């Protein structure tokens, strides 16, 4: 395959990944790296570099629209980002110490976990218990727009959220993904934020977390311009159209289908990593 053909195929696959990632809220990076490694036979380090940059582009593109809608909670975002940024730097350094097979296996396990989490998610997890003391101390409670006017929400289990954010950041730096699934888990499941607040706040900080590892990725030579160019452009345009097409509508069956794709990719990544290492 020559460079022009390779770039064109990559552009199309990245567009689809970005489109489905935005529709389902799982993000494009989680399928991009396996697609690059398994379909295009790209070394996993280059794949992680291209994916990390695409994650930043997607987050920046989508966040602009979400802030306007009034769902994003910047206080919660910045508080949790402390854990995520530190995790991201640790993850990026650890990535350099591990060989490609080990990273592939970890990646596969994360894919399996993401698919599982996404399949078993409950829609409404809000609770009327009083907020966690840290949430009061750091004034995290917020108001979100609803059809019947603004509605106040509480914030629970902040330490668990912060811990999960550290994990999300570490995985982001280690694997070059946005870790959207773990971030939403932290805010939706642990802190019991309204789902839309959790996803939009996650989307806002994903790019910042990824930027923390980007310096290490550039220095180690993971970011190849020829490879990243079609991937970044494809994912960016794909995620913008995905967000526009179904902005807000629930796409339950689509999410299940996408989760099954992720499940299959996860099994394949684990199998490939183990087979190559033996």
């Amino acid at each position: 395959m020559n460079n022009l053909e390779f770039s064109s195929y990559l552009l199309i696959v990245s567009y689809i990944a970005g489109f489905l990632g935005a529709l389902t809220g799982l993000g494009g990076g989680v399928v991009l790296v396996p697609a690059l490694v398994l379909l295009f036979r790209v070394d996993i380090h280059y794949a992680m570099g291209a994916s990390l940059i695409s994650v930043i582009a997607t987050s920046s593109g989508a966040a602009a629209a979400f802030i306007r809608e009034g769902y994003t909670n910047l206080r919660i975002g910045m508080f949790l980002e402390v854990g995520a940024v530190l995790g991201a730097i640790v993850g990026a350094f650890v990535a350099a110490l591990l060989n490609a097979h080990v990273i592939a296996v970890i990646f596969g396990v994360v894919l399996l976990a993401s698919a599982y989490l996404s399949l078993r998610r409950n829609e409404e997890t809000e609770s009327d218990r009083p907020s966690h003391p840290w949430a009061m101390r750091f004034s995290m409670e917020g108001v979100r727009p609803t059809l019947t006017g603004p509605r106040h929400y509480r914030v629970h289990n902040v330490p668990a959220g912060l811990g999960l954010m550290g994990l999300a950041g570490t995985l982001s730096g280690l694997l070059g993904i946005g870790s959207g699934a773990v971030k939403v888990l932290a805010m939706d499941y642990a802190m019991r934020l309204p789902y839309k607040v959790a996803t939009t706040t996650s989307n806002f900080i994903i790019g910042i977390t990824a930027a923390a590892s980007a310096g290490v990725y550039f220095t180690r030579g993971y970011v190849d311009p020829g490879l990243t160019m079609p991937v970044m452009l494809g994912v960016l345009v794909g995620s913008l159209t995905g967000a526009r097409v179904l902005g807000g509508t629930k796409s339950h069956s689509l999410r299940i289908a996408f989760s099954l794709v992720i499940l299959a990719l996860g099994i394949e990544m684990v199998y490939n990593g183990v087979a190559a290492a033996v």
Partner: protein
Amino acid sequence: MDRSLERIEARIGMTLTAGVLLAGMLVAFGGMLYLLHHAGQPVHYHIFRGEPGDLRTIGGVVHEALTLSGRGLIQLGLVALVAEQLVRVALTAWLFMVQRDRVYVWITLGILAVLAVSLFRNG
């Protein structure tokens, strides 16, 4: 008070949109130049060699881009995209400053410092 907050939020949104557009255009323009010269070449991304030293540092990337090399221009667009995240965090700090929320000003500036060290010491 509320109107000035909305203005800053709008500015964060505008900065994000403008930054992504600028980075995307640099990458697309560099990509065209790159493919113009290298369209027929075979690709070999299956072996990791790492980028040449020039494309690993900010100074090197700017230098390459100024020679209008396709790869240099793409890389400049990618660095710009990362740098834009710092602007986003700085604007968020400003938002908290206007709200006189001292705790969050410090939290946000702390994140900004970590990002800056990570990007400029490594990049």
